[in-house]
């Protein structure tokens, strides 16, 4: 293990090094323009575990995910996925590596010019030599899994938001990936479907041994499925640990995130009002 650059709460090294890491990020620093977004991240995902990434809005969760997927070039640091440094891979190497990854974006990102079925078959059509009938059957199986059987001939524009997310999930698992990335998979889903999705994620880990990285805001879901949780805060890793370790953490910032306490609630009301109005309003009303 390397030395974390921002060691706030170095817990959870208990079950370390039994299983090999599938993702290994070291000292990742990234900028958008002049703004530093990720400030030295160390991040590991082990084979067959579900790793949840939590954190407030703007803390850098999506940015971290985009870097893990080589959609963004870091300023410095290294990112190894399945033993390969993705910052130095060429196009072909990257394409080969990505065949072993599945990704469901927050917006779904289904191809609007293709039907739902074609969307889900696309990775098969591109990377395998299966005949169309086999591909159709495989697509139907995955649609069945996400409870979308019978929708393969619709266009993405004819689906609801929750259905798009589940279709995106089906596309992400069509190649039976080694690592699955999910950005807010259950946001906006009704509780029944969200809970079914949690069960599906657990099943994918247990039955197929997938390693799964999930960005989520849903605490219940996170606590239900997580093997470990990474808490991001303003571009730093605040803490990494098991569900119990995170729940019992005495770090105030983590407790704020867990109990959805916002900073606004913590500051005094007058100061809050002043910030909202840029100062003027408060002074005027306070004046006798």
């Amino acid at each position: 293990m390397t030395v974390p650059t921002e060691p706030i709460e170095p817990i959870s090294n208990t079950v370390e090094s039994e299983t090999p890491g599938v993702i290994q990020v070291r000292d990742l620093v990234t900028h958008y323009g002049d703004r530093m977004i990720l400030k030295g991240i160390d991040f590991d995902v082990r084979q067959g575990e579900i790793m949840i990434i939590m954190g407030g809005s703007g803390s850098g969760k999506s940015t971290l995910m985009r870097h893990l997927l080589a959609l963004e070039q870091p300023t410095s640091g290294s990112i190894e996925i399945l033993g390969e440094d993705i910052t130095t891979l060429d196009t072909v190497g990257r394409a080969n590596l990505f065949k072993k990854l599945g990704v469901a974006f927050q917006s779904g990102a289904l191809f609007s010019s293709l039907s739902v079925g074609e969307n889900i078959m696309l990775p098969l059509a591109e990377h395998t030599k299966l005949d169309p009938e086999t591909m159709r059957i495989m697509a139907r199986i995955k649609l069945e899994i996400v409870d979308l059987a019978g929708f393969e001939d619709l266009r993405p524009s004819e689906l609801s938001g929750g259905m798009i997310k589940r279709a995106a999930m089906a596309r992400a698992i069509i190649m039976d990936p080694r690592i699955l990335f999910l950005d807010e998979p259950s946001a906006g889903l009704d509780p029944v479907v969200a809970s079914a999705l949690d069960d599906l994620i657990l099943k994918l880990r247990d039955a197929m041994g997938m390693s799964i990285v999930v960005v989520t805001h849903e605490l219940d879901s996170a606590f239900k499925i997580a093997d470990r949780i990474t808490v991001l805060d303003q571009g730093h890793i605040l803490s990494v640990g098991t569900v119990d370790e995170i729940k019992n953490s005495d770090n105030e910032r983590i407790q704020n995130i867990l109990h959805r306490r916002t900073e606004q609630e913590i500051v005094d009301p007058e100061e809050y009002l002043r910030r909202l109005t840029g100062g003027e309003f408060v002074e005027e009303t306070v004046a006798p």
Partner: protein
Amino acid sequence: MPPNTLGSTLVDSTERLGRGVVDGVASFGHWTALVVESVYWLFFGPRMRQPVRLAAIAQQMMEVGIFAVPIVALLSGTIGLMLAMQGIHTLSQFGAESQVTAGIAFSVVREFASLITGILVAGRSGSALAARLSTMQINQEIDALKVTGINPVRFLVAPALIAMIIMVPALTFIANLIALSAAGLFISYDLDISQAAYWSQTINVLSVGDLMHGLGKSLIFAVLITLIGVANGASVTGGAEGVGRVTTRAVVQSIIAIIVTDMLFVFVSTL
């Protein structure tokens, strides 16, 4: 908010112009790379089991080429008629109306056919390309392609580029035929010469070089329209508003590029 005086506006726009030029020069390398990459995928894609899909090319060829035939025919026919009327009218003032055939043959084949086709394709297909790519960019579909191990240039740009390279010269050829035919109809009626005489005169004055000049230009227009559409589509920011912005910009830039390129061609070929 900074004060918006005339001075600062001027400085601003000058600076923006300068930055635009720098960006333009920088992206020129990028664009060349894009063409090279598209061609690369066309020839080497199959070897890496990642071919450019023929179905996608065929579909683009329908969109860019076949569906544009009626409007190209209409416009080029109109232009042919217009040139014939104006040519006879102008030349008759010098008693030289019998020279109109040669004048029209050159201006249609060397200039008008490729120019009209280029502008039309920029408006129809350059805008469509920019709109499609920018929507995909905003909807994270391009990211989804990348993480699926599918190269977006191979999947999206190469089919469009190939379709354009084939169809824009083809449309230009059609525009040649129709513009010359329309002009011929009017000339044979107005000057009372036979169609056969008109066509043999036309073929006599034209050389293969003239035809190639026009078709060659249209090929360059095809590449320009595609690259400008792709560059704008890829540079989109913001939501639906951004799509509208880059689509408009793609059309305007394409038409400017086409006319400036055309002017350069005339300049060089008449040196």
